[in-house]
């Protein structure tokens, strides 16, 4: 007996939207089984993860935190999705995030302690340019030498991490920090602080930027010729070329935009929730955003929802850890399951399983 995957002639359209929901449900079931195997009450664990942050006793604190955690994910994932749709794979958003944080914070630290209204705008610009420049490296290498942007962008993450460590220890080190690594805390520098717009709401400029990015991406993909070219290139590269799409321009645009958005996310994080350039500043938003992009079907509104869902599993997962004593690794497995089951459901959307009782019929292999 053998199993075979057979491509469906036409995948059911509603499944494209139903599959993320199904993936979440299956993840809850499998995750519950995992938590039960660890000796925890699965219902309590799942409800802590999904219920507590939204409606629990301390929801007033956790709800804003969902925005804080979700904003960088959405902002980065929007940029990544543009490229992914066109078949341009930027895996190095984490590096662009770091460099954007460094250039943005660098501007703030260079002007310290100047109290000027234009400083924060300048920082956003510098952050976007830093991320853009880091994203341009794989783009230009691909155009000039035909290198693989997946490898180059990924490896540049490790370069960026070393750069971050060097900056935290060297040029950006807090001169009043008694020799300890890490920059000044921008939270204590009002002109550069990405503070909450309304106290206690979690709404900082990064959240605003993420929402704007969602709207722009939505319009771009739906209404603009560039969005059409992106979609066409992803679905039928040959047809796109006949239609006059300039692939070089598209590569520059996609890697540049995703780099700039990741850089801005880094800037908003370093000047707000994180506060300072430190050796361990990056915590993996650039990689998690890849999951968010796919979970959101590479669709701007889907990404917004997926980013918030991912943030929910983070915040809820943290609560479950300290309230129920779940190991951190179990929560990570739980989050990983989400992508795993999404991909699995996707396969079954596009293919059907066939049980073959004997060796395949030779006539079919033609």
């Amino acid at each position: 007996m053998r199993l075979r995957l057979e491509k469906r002639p036409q995948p059911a359209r509603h499944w494209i939207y139903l599959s993320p929901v199904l993936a979440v449900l299956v993840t809850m079931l499998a995750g519950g089984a995992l938590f039960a195997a660890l000796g925890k009450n699965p219902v309590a664990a799942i409800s802590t993860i999904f219920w507590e942050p939204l409606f629990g006793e301390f929801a007033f604190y956790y709800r804003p935190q969902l925005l804080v955690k979700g904003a960088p994910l959405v902002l980065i994932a929007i940029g990544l999705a543009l490229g992914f749709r066109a078949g341009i794979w930027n895996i190095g958003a984490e590096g662009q995030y770091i460099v954007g944080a460094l250039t943005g914070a660098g501007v703030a630290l260079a002007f310290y302690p100047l109290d000027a209204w234009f400083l924060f705008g300048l920082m956003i610009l510098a952050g976007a340019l830093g991320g853009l420049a880091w994203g341009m490296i794989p783009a230009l290498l691909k155009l000039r030498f035909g290198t693989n942007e997946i490898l180059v962008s990924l490896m540049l993450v490790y370069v960026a991490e070393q750069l971050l460590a060097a900056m935290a220890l060297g040029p950006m080190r807090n001169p009043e920090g008694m020799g300890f690594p890490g920059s000044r805390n921008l939270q204590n520098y009002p002109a550069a602080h990405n503070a909450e717009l309304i106290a206690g709401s979690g709404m900082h400029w990064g959240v605003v930027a993420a929402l704007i990015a969602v709207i722009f991406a939505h319009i771009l993909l739906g209404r603009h010729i560039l969005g059409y070219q992106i979609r066409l290139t992803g679905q039928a590269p040959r047809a796109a070329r006949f239609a006059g799409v300039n692939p070089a321009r598209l590569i520059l645009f996609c890697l540049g935009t995703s780099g700039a958005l990741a850089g801005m996310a880094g800037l908003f994080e370093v000047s707000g929730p994180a506060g300072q350039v430190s050796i361990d500043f990056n915590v993996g938003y650039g990689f998690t955003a890849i999951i968010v992009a796919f979970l959101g079907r590479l669709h701007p509104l889907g990404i917004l929802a997926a980013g918030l869902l991912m943030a929910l599993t983070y915040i809820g997962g943290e609560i479950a850890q300290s309230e129920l004593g779940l190991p951190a690794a179990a929560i990570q497995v739980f989050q990983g399951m989400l992508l795993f089951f999404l991909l699995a459901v996707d396969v079954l959307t596009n293919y059907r399983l066939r049980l073959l009782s004997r060796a395949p019929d030779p006539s079919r292999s033609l």
Partner: protein
Amino acid sequence: MTLKTLLTGAVLALGLTSTIALAQDDKTKVGFIYVGPIGDGGWTYEHDKGRLAIEEHFGDKVETIYRESVSEGADASRAITQMALSGADLIFTTSFGFMDATVSVAEKFPDVKFEHATGYKTAPNLATYSARFYEGRAIQGHIAGKMTKSNIVGYIASYPIPEVIRGINAAFIHARKVNPDVQFKIIWAYTWFDPAKEADAATALIEQGADVILQHTDSTAPQAAAEKAGGVVTFGQASDMAEYKPFPRVSSIIDNWAPYYIARTQAVIDGTWETQQVWHGIKEGMVEIGEITDAVPADVREEALAMKAAIASGEYHPFTGPLKKQDGSDWLAEGETADDGTLLGMDFYVEGLEGDIPQ
């Protein structure tokens, strides 16, 4: 939650709130924020042993909670805030990188007591505590200097912060003292816990001829790498790492946080908790020297134990002059000992060490 609200409402109506509040206060809640997983076999593992010691000592009177593998920055703030919200009375944040997050959360919860390990910022409700690991490093340096045959000692350093630099200097001074030809090769791993990176660093050092490896990172990966290479001496870091006894692990520095954690929890229960900056060493028992195995010659073991006794009694300070800095300038005159201020901010190598501290 709804049930709880209802109950609270009912209790309010009956006017029994004070009794309930007391009942809740009876049980002191102590929280721990860890930088690594509790199974790291090193730093976090020992802090978690301290937590378990609290549970054992106080039994039902105290409840403990913890969060492992917490990232620095925004995630740390949230983790600490969450513990404070959930009713913790005392929260230990056990990594240098949690400093600013601990400070800002402590401001928001004046009634909760905070203790930050290895930092330097305090507040009325925020104390700091650390251990004089360099005392143990001095003893390791002595053994390393005696044990090395290639005269190359490898050192896996984590981050170039004063605590780590202090350890390198203390070990080097005492290795040189007994072996004028000894050299230190230092690799900066930029991590506290990353078994793969630590194993790579250990292998690289061994390939460069090191036959003794000291580590300031928390996993047992360097021990395993040394065991595989054969003939390489190691020391347990933060925890005893006894599974690598009697060789390659010939001794260890053990962080024993339990007595401190129990004392501070007791202080919160008694209402006598006050902010402080504590820096305890071998004398107070916060730094312990793990068994020196038979792989170390008897005379070397005797000398090492004698040094331990001298440090414990205060008779000997590991940083005693004459000592010069790496650039050849004078640091400590004959018989002079380093003051804590200099040690806490140490950002220079002593004479004889090669290479630069990463800038």
